[in-house]
């Protein structure tokens, strides 16, 4: 696989803590865009961005409608909207119905990102209590992307990584602490 142009991460229950660990371990020289979809009950992701921003050496911002995807930056899907990536690598938001009972849906982000980068990306599924992300990760792999899944036994909620393994399989199934080093290794020039 050629060097990935982007990293997409999905998680739900137990997600914020898992994200802190992963983002905290990412090398600040990473040139890739890092996109995050984390299910949250809050009305905004302001607090989540703040929390992740303190843990990460990469800047963390909310992904904004029409904005160009930024390299070396963590961009978080806003609450209440699906986040999609256009082929011209700009963000589009959507209020289409929930997918897997959630919006934003990891499946929606992963599928559009996989198409936009034509498979040149890494998808990561972390802790979560439902099956969102599994179909998106499957699509990402079919297009040539690399799939990392947190070991279900290591996750606070194992259902989401287990569903991803069942439906998509993984190129790497590793404990949480191993994910950031692996991403650095796959993504640094």
């Amino acid at each position, binding site marked *: 696989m050629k060097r990935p142009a982007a990293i997409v991460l999905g998680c739900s229950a137990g997600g914020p803590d898992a994200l802190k660990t992963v983002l905290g371990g990412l090398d600040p020289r990473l040139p890739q865009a890092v996109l995050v979809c984390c299910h949250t009950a809050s009305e905004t992701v302001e607090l989540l961005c703040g929390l992740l921003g303190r843990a990460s050496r990469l800047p963390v911002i909310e992904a*904004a*409608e*029409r*904005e160009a995807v930024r390299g070396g930056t963590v961009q978080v899907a*806003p609450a209440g*909207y*699906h986040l*999609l*990536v*256009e*082929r011209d690598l700009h963000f*589009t*938001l*959507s*209020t*289409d*119905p929930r997918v897997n009972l959630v919006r934003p849906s990891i499946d*929606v982000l992963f599928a*559009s990102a996989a*198409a*936009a980068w*034509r*498979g040149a990306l890494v998808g990561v599924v972390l802790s979560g209590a439902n099956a969102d992300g599994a179909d998106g990760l*499957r*699509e990402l792999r*079919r*297009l*040539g992307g690399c799939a990392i899944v947190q070991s279900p036994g290591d996750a606070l909620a194992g259902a989401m990584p287990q569903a991803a393994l069942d439906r998509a399989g993984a190129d790497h199934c590793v404990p949480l602490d191993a994910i950031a080093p692996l991403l650095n290794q796959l993504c640094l020039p």
Partner: protein
Amino acid sequence: MDHSPDDLELEGIELDLFVEAMRRRHGYDFGQYAPASLLRRVRQLARSHGDGAISALTHRLLHEPALLPQLLEGLSVPASDMFRDPSVFRALREQVLPLLASWPQLTIWQAGCAHGEEVYSLAILLEEAGLYERSQIFATDLSALALERAREGIYPLRSAQQWSRNYLAAGGRHSLSDYCSARYGLLKLDGRLRRNVTFVQHNLVSDGVFCEAQLVLCRNVLIYFSDPLQQHCLALFRDSLARGGFLCLGLRERPDSGGATADFTPVDAALRIYRRGSTGSPGRPP
């Protein structure tokens, strides 16, 4: 459906042909919709009306005109919630309606009304502000089927709890149940809320100005459009607004990204509420 990179190329061609067929066969132009969300919707239509292939859907689109309303429904604004983003409705209630009260007659245009959830929300706001009697609301949508649903004002009862919370968070003075009845698992809005509402088909892509409004609401519609079409719509809203009239967009929409907001002054930029013209005059004489 699963895709290899080659399939993506083919699918792109299929999508282009679908858009071309829709334009030439039925006169609806989706060529300036944001591609990623348009593709998602067309894929869903291809699955629900066939085997998932967009080319098969295009064939049906060409040869089965009766299918058009369902396709338009699938390609238009999705359902909303009553009082979605309560802070916006609170700001309309507290900051906008008191200023609208200076007009003897009010014309309000809700563009992309989908199933009407926000139209009824607005009607309740106007009712509680004592402005409903002198208001005329035009609720428009691309989809005739969506307008039918909006006209009925019947929704799944499971939404009621969330909507009641939204109503109160938006500063509601009574209880949402005062405006609706519940039976057979359905929530039915009081038909009186509709007495000054006109539901009418309007296509933001191709139809022009049809009223002079004091308030235009168009929330979470522009996110489905590419930049040039967004700018086109913002110009249409400007031309449809009386001087001093208000525009309300969706909370994550970015009207400033293309420059058309020069005609608008923010009333509350975070809530995407704007006012046409910067002069303090309450508006053009009626």
